[in-house]
């Protein structure tokens, strides 16, 4: 890699991070408006046109807040935790392919990289819960780690399905393999369905993995109906109960960055990434990203929080077996495809 490449990578990185950070306030605004509309309310509409600047007003308020630290808090870890949540969340954007050129760097293990960083984010939550020295925070942190353990596996299996179907770990490779019309292998020949794109969501074998990944995405980003770590009705505010001002805002932003990452992953892995007719690739990526983000908001407005034991049970007895069965089916299909079962 030459110095020019590195320079370009840094410029792209700055632009992408800048865009993400600039869009986040509007994402928060959109979520609040959508939630309001779904509950027959209007949502924030006073600050700026249609309330667009609400998040900036909130941010300003948070900046002016007094920083209150609990008396027996572990100060170092207490200050470290929000950064531990925020920084890995932002790091994931390095490999996400917004378009054929709009990707900072294409790692050949991109999926693994994102997966690793997503699990790193939970340290922020657990440590915040531990360092706050408050029972609510601690419970929130513990729940978060248990939730992460039980859902990481399901999400991992869903990713294995994608990797088996596309044959690559690089995110760009996964998107590129989803271009063109929908293609199946059927009795030794290629079956082409002309009016459907070759996205994984249209392939019956990837459908269980898609739903697993979506549900796992809800769980990993700690959002309703899996927002147990910050369950307002039981744990005040969960792991960030004792945080004020900008540190609280960092948790908040980290959560939303995670939501964007999860949506981008769903788009890339299952919805064909930047592939689409007529319009430029970036347009298609953003449209699909918005659709997935809407699904996140929609689920939050609809589904009540499930109980802790239900969540664990669902993770271990539904998601993991489904993933294993899905992988087995694809293995059989592949074996058939490569004529190991010539007798058929």
């Amino acid at each position, binding site marked *: 890699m030459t110095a020019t490449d590195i320079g370009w990578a840094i410029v792209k990185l700055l632009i992408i991070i800048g865009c993400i950070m600039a869009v986040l306030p509007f994402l928060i605004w959109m979520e609040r408006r959508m939630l309001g*509309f779904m509950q*027959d309310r209007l949502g924030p509409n006073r600050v700026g046109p249609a309330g667009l600047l609400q998040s900036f007003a909130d941010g300003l308020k948070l900046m002016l807040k007094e920083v209150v630290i609990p008396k027996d808090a572990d100060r170092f870890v207490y200050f470290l935790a929000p950064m531990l949540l925020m920084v890995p969340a932002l790091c994931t954007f390095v490999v996400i392919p917004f378009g054929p050129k709009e990707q900072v760097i294409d790692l050949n293990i991109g999926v693994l990289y994102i997966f690793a960083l997503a699990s790193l984010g939970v340290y922020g939550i657990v440590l915040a819960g531990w360092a706050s020295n408050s029972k609510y925070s601690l419970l929130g942190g513990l729940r978060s780690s248990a939730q992460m353990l039980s859902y990481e596996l399901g999400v991992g299996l869903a990713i294995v399905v994608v990797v088996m179907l596309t044959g690559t770990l690089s995110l760009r490779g996964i998107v590129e393999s989803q271009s063109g019309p929908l293609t199946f292998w059927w009795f030794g020949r290629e079956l082409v369905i002309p009016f459907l794109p070759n996205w994984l969501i249209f392939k019956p074998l990837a459908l269980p993995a898609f739903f697993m990944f979506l549900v796992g995405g809800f769980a990993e980003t700690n959002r309703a109906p899996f927002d147990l770590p910050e369950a307002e009705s039981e744990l005040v505010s969960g792991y960030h109960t004792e945080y004020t001002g900008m540190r609280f805002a960092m948790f908040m932003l980290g959560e939303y960055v995670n939501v964007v990452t999860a949506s981008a992953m769903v788009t890339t892995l299952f919805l064909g990434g930047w592939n689409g007719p007529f319009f430029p690739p970036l347009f298609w990526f953003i449209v699909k990203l918005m659709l997935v983000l809407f699904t996140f908001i929609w689920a939050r*407005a*609809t589904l009540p929080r499930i109980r802790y034991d239900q969540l664990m049970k669902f993770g271990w007895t539904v998601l993991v077996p489904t993933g294993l069965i899905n992988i087995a089916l694809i293995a059989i299909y592949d074996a058939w495809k490569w004529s190991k079962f010539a007798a058929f």
Partner: protein
Amino acid sequence: MIRDILRSLKVTFSHLFEPKVTVQYPDEPVKVANRFRGRHILRRWEDGKERCIGCHLCSAACPADAITVIAEDNPRDNPISRGERYAKVYQIDLLRCIFCGYCEDACPVNAIVLGQGFEFSGYRREDFIVNKEDLLEPHPNSFIKDSFFDSKLYDRPYLPIPSNVDLEAIIEGKQREIEETIRTAKPPIVIRPY
């Protein structure tokens, strides 16, 4: 379970496009119920004369002692009300008022009523002492037309002094004529004992 989730998703999605219940209060007026009773109004007759005849019954009925009335004899050439007297001072201390509506009940000419207004705010306590000028309904010929003073809302049975009974007749005690007018007047009149 999957079907339930899909059904509930449908419900929330359909609510995206439904009319919202939020009332943006200072920008949009709030509709109060017809029977809502708030700030007082002193009414006028259709010809613009004040209804209040300065009888003090409202201030006597007021359990919170919020009403002060000082009556004076009507000027003969240009009567302000239809009675013998009129209220020279009519003052209500809104901070004392408990909105019980006894003044409304007590009033023989249905002059004081509790209106639909509810926007009470002020910077000083004195702002809540309202005088006759603040309470009076606008003159029918006035260019001020305010739905706030929608008189029809406040009509209720009372002992009226119909406009075709002249003051002289009342003063001279032509009781039979008055009774005749009252009997034939429309709508039917409920004479309440007081």
